[in-house]
């Protein structure tokens, strides 16, 4: 028995070491970026526009561009995603059609972002003549976050107890009234979690955005203006070797943004769980 215990201790030690290594890598990434980048961040940095190709100045327009792009993408994808989720869970049972819809969603989720970039370029920018613009980028991004929104919305909707629907229907409500008054309000925290997840993902998206929204320095004045997002700005700074300090600063802003989004998502998810166990 002793050798078995020994091999167990050895195995657990290896596994724990692996986990510790993973966490160490994460810690390294976060602290390294923050250590080098935080000194760069000032109010001026956040609000000013890039000067001299980004070697000086700040990242203000990039922040604005990122926010506008993400919010617009969510505004387009959310009704589609929630609508699909409602349809799949409330109005139909498993059939060839629902299997096809799920298959389409899964495929969409697996497509790499560069292909979305290709598609967005050839379809939105060129064929639909939207040009490199906020709207082309937002529409492309919307398709990319759609599968996540559908999945999380459906989970949230299915988590609403079936009995509540039965009660509502037995009192003479239509299915849509039941969805509107009972299902959606109670699925909201879960749906919002999906929104936060998608928001986080869209912040870091680069390949698809460069080829659809372009990389203009200026603040967009309309939906058809090109915008530069934080990730794109950072990529250009880093790749062209323009300014290491500004690059670190931008990276730090990105990492902090992701931290904030994740923290909010967790707060939302906990509220969701707490509500359900009431």
């Amino acid at each position, binding site marked *: 028995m002793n050798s078995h215990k020994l091999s167990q201790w050895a195995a657990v030690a290896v596994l724990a070491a692996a986990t510790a290594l993973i966490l160490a890598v994460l810690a390294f990434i976060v602290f390294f970026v923050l250590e080098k980048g935080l000194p760069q961040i000032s109010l001026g940095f956040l609000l000013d526009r890039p000067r001299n190709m980004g070697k000086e100045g700040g990242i203000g327009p990039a922040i604005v561009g990122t926010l506008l792009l993400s919010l617009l993408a969510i505004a387009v994808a959310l009704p589609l995603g929630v609508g699909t989720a409602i349809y799949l869970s409330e109005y139909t049972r498993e059939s060839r059609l629902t299997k096809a819809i799920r298959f389409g969603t899964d495929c969409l989720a697996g497509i790499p972002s560069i292909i979305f970039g290709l598609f967005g370029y050839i379809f939105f920018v060129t064929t639909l003549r939207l040009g490199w613009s906020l709207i082309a980028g937002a529409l492309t991004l919307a398709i990319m976050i759609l599968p996540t929104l559908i999945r999380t919305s459906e989970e949230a909707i299915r988590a609403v107890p079936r009995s509540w629907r039965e009660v509502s229907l*037995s009192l003479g409500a239509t299915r849509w009234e039941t969805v509107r008054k009972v299902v959606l309000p109670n699925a909201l925290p879960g749906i919002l979690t999906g929104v936060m997840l998608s928001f986080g993902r869209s912040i870091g998206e680069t390949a698809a955005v460069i080829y659809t929204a372009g990389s203009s320095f200026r603040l967009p004045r309309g939906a058809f203006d090109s915008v530069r997002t934080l990730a794109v700005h950072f990529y250009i700074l880093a790749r062209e070797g323009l300014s290491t300090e500004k690059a670190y600063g931008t990276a730090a802003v990105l990492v902090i943004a992701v931290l904030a989004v994740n923290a909010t998502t967790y707060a939302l998810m906990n509220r969701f769980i707490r509500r359900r166990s009431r």
Partner: protein
Amino acid sequence: MSGVHRPGGDRSRGEPASPRAGAAAATGDAAAAPRPKVEVRGLRVSFYGEEAIKGISLDIHERRILGIIGPAGSAKTTFLRALDRMNELSEGCRTEGQVLIDGADVYGPGVDPVALRKRVGMVFAMPMPLPLSIYENVVYGTRLKGTAAKSASELDELVEACLRSAFLWDEVKDRLGSSGLKLSGGQQQRLCLARTLAVNPEIILLDEPCSGLDPISTAKIEEALANLKERHTIVLVTNNTKQAARASDETAFFLMGELVELGSTASIFTNPKDRRTEDYVTGRFG
């Protein structure tokens, strides 16, 4: 939405006129035998081809309490849910036969199940308050499309009246805004009864409403039903033969999806005609 209906014979179409008028006509017509409120003719219900209800016909008279007893698996709940077309919510369900309410088949073409369920209320076996305040629970049904709008004071009165009818008012009158989920099991079930009463259904269906409840809550619900039968028609499914003996005017004995015997409660319990009925009520099986 997956239920399919095959009408069994000829029947009158469309919805009856104002429900209260139907009831008034019945009361005024005391001399001649009043038409039963509900007439079930040849009801068959199957799920994915397996028959659960194998041809049941019976009458339910107005302003009486019909108790339905029988061992588990006799399709008592399925029968109840056939009366307000709730079986259609289950996949693979097929219904044949007729259910006439005030002479009109509720399975006829053009009959809206949503409107039907406003006339036929249901209290489920497990207490199921909605995740809303006590007040909001009770008024939920009054805010649906197709119900008359009520003013705030009318709603307040309605809430009090319904909670009183369910013998719950005194216990919750000071905390109508608190969540319905925080009540005890017996209180929750009475809340569900009040909620059903708020839409003033002509027929109230109760599916083993007191299973798992303490004797005091059970007594309160039974007392509420005794009062309610003055203005509503009540069908009470129960696993507890003693409750049927206490609470119902007439009793039906179901066995494996068939109606074995139907008669006044007294005769069913003291002088049953069918051997199986006698075996069940005396406890030889169950």
